């Protein structure tokens, strides 16, 4: 029996997860824990009245190695993190940083104007600002006195 008729089951799960997180956050009074697993890069999504912001930590990734596309409410982050090889006569003591490819597909939790998207990369953090369409922006409603 289909439970989710016209809904994306993953988005439903996401929504559930967020509600659960919210619940726990209220109980514990602290920031919610990052979800386990997932796809690189991990993202944070926030909003204000005019924008939706998608942020990802991509230290050492060159902006030219990043490919961002937006299609039908789906934001795709693709790219490669390269770690330049050192000279031959080096001796590694620790190697924790990793290089490789990534591809992250995000379903945006709100409507955005596809013509008003800006991406900035600073100090290894990518910030994509997606403007909300005019018609869905929250509007202040004035209360008229009698």
């Amino acid at each position, binding site marked *: 029996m289909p439970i989710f008729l016209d809904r994306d089951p993953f988005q439903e799960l996401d929504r559930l997860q967020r509600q659960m997180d919210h619940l726990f956050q209220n109980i514990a009074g602290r920031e919610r824990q990052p979800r386990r697993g997932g796809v690189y890069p991990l993202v*944070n*999504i926030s*909003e204000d009245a005019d924008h939706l912001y998608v942020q990802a930590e991509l230290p050492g*990734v060159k902006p030219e190695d990043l490919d961002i596309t937006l299609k039908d409410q789906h934001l795709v982050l693709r790219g490669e993190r390269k770690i330049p090889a050192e000279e031959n006569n080096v001796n590694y003591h620790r190697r924790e940083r990793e290089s*490789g490819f*990534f591809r992250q597909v995000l379903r945006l939790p709100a409507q955005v104007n596809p013509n008003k998207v800006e991406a900035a990369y600073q*100090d*290894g953090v990518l910030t994509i600002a997606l403007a909300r369409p005019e018609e869905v922006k929250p509007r202040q409603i004035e209360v008229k006195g009698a």
Partner: protein
Amino acid sequence: MTEQELKPKAKEEAPAKGERVRPGRVFIPAVDIFETPQALVLVADMPGVSGDQVTLDLKDNLLTIHGQVAPPSERETMLVQEYAIGDYYREFQVGELIDKDKIEASVKDGVLKLTLPKAERAKPRRIEVKSG
């Protein structure tokens, strides 16, 4: 080069050392450390940290790295949080003798690179005897 897909990693929290003045969480940055004939080089991933927010200290062979990250804007409401935001802190015992005056550090795209040149071995000194 092998084509490898990157896997996400949750940040590891740094062990608490005393009470901090600033509130917030502290994480351990991932590092590469390698040695060349001339120097010890440390590379650390510290996304969100700019050059003027890094504090480095080398005292009695204990190297300390601290990177401060600005807290997220209060005006925004977090909808989905997959990664946590906080400072970076890590300590290392440096075995080699380091020439402290020649340490070089740079931060680019959230990656700190620290070059610690090895101190030249104590050279045999010749003591000149002045004739009076």
